[in-house]
């Protein structure tokens, strides 16, 4: 299983983004009830890149601006809390917007 030996924190975020890979993302997405399509991958890849530069998961506004999709479309791909959901699937920490 892709998720064997992967460490998560109390809120279900991976503790080490470096051990993340695409198989893990597929499994994590399944747990959220999401089947990943190309549109999902575009968002996930943006988040991975963004986190590489800034050291943290992007906020909702950073994602919509960076990927070039509307907030509505983003909610369609990752229902309820897209920023948190993508961060989880992309193996990143919780977005810091929610303080």
């Amino acid at each position, binding site marked *: 299983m892709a998720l064997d030996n992967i460490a998560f924190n*109390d*809120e279900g975020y991976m503790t080490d983004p470096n051990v993340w890979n695409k198989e893990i993302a597929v499994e994590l997405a399944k747990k959220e009830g999401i089947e990943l399509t190309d549109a999902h991958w575009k968002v996930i890849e943006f988040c991975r890149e963004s986190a590489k530069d800034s050291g943290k998961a992007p*906020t*909702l*506004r*950073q994602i919509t*601006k960076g990927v070039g999709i509307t*907030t*509505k479309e983003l*909610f369609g791909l990752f*229902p*309820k*809390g897209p920023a948190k959901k993508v961060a989880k699937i992309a193996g990143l920490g919780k977005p*810091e*917007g*929610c*303080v």
Partner: protein
Amino acid sequence: MKTFLILGAGTGGTMVANKMAAALDPQEWRIIIVDRDEKHYYQPGFLFIPFGIYSPNEVVKPKRNFLPPQVEVIFSDIELIEPEKNRVRLGKAKKTINYDYLVISTGSHIHPEETPGLDDEASWLKNIFPFYTLEGATELSNFLKYWKGGRMVLNIAEMPIKCPVAPLEFLFLADWFFQERGIRDKVEIVFATPLPGAFTKPRASSVLGGMLDDKGVALEADFNIMEVDTTKQVIRSYDEKEIAYDLLVTIPTNMGAEVIGNSGMGDELNFVPTNKHTLQTDKWENVWIIGDAGNVPASKAGSVAHFMLDVVIENILRHMEGLDPLPKFDGHANCYIESGFEKGVLIDFNYDVEPLPGKYPLPGFGPFSLLQESHTNHWGKMMFRWMYWNILLKGGEMPFESQMSMAGKWA
């Protein structure tokens, strides 16, 4: 002569002006502070206005009263900040100020226009009110005085917001207020929030969520507002959930000052990217942040600005001596949560440690109880207004340490 410039004379800027006036040699430095508004607002007091606990004149005083005489005060809007050229252009005052050091303390403000329908003219301040402005809080007070009841929805548009506990306090006080008015049975209270629960931090969220339950407030979690339909009187989320309202109390999107965006210094919400431990901006070494203006992931609150104060002052003075800044700001926040019926809850936390139960500020003794309701906590909050005007703004010693302590807490 060198120039120390402060933009914004709210809680953070005023404290910095007072500290710097004491620290810098007046023969060598001139200190200038700029603000567009001559009035200082005690923002924590806005919460009490809708319920008639405070009147508007109790939360406003002239800014000049809290600034030392040697500080030059300019009342003007700010047109543009040019950090590459170390200068700031003022609008109304029609002048350009060249600075050696700049502190940005321009705060955060509500932007109802970010949510379609929210600022609809026929409804805004008629049955849709914010309470994060003096005007909104005052208008809401007039509305609530004669309201016959119905469904009151409190909605947070998106995070982050200033004082993330204020919405909960509003709900607790509303429950109390409607009971006092004898119409609690005619009012349905709904809390629609984009967060997964009552608050941002898990343990406090469960305690505070339990209190909402006890007070009969319905929680609609994970509600991300897309628009307000003022004809149908519903708020609609991105996933097409609708919540009907008779009275909508809104905490609209919070953003940093427009001049930050216009000057190309901010992120998507006009907050300036800042080192969360040193409070130096990421891009300009002589530009520093206090309070809400930066993007540091700490609560946007006066107590946080106060805990930032000693760190930012020390680091600026170190920088003037050619030393590296110290990463001493730990995200410390300390919030009195008014819970109605003259009781309150106190929480104390930082970047790494969520709010825990215990006693504060003296371990074991208190007098304040953490993460638990008590009358003493309420009186602490009431007393705080006096401390704010008389001690805190002037940079005086407060009986709380800047860095959070684990002493007296139960992990």
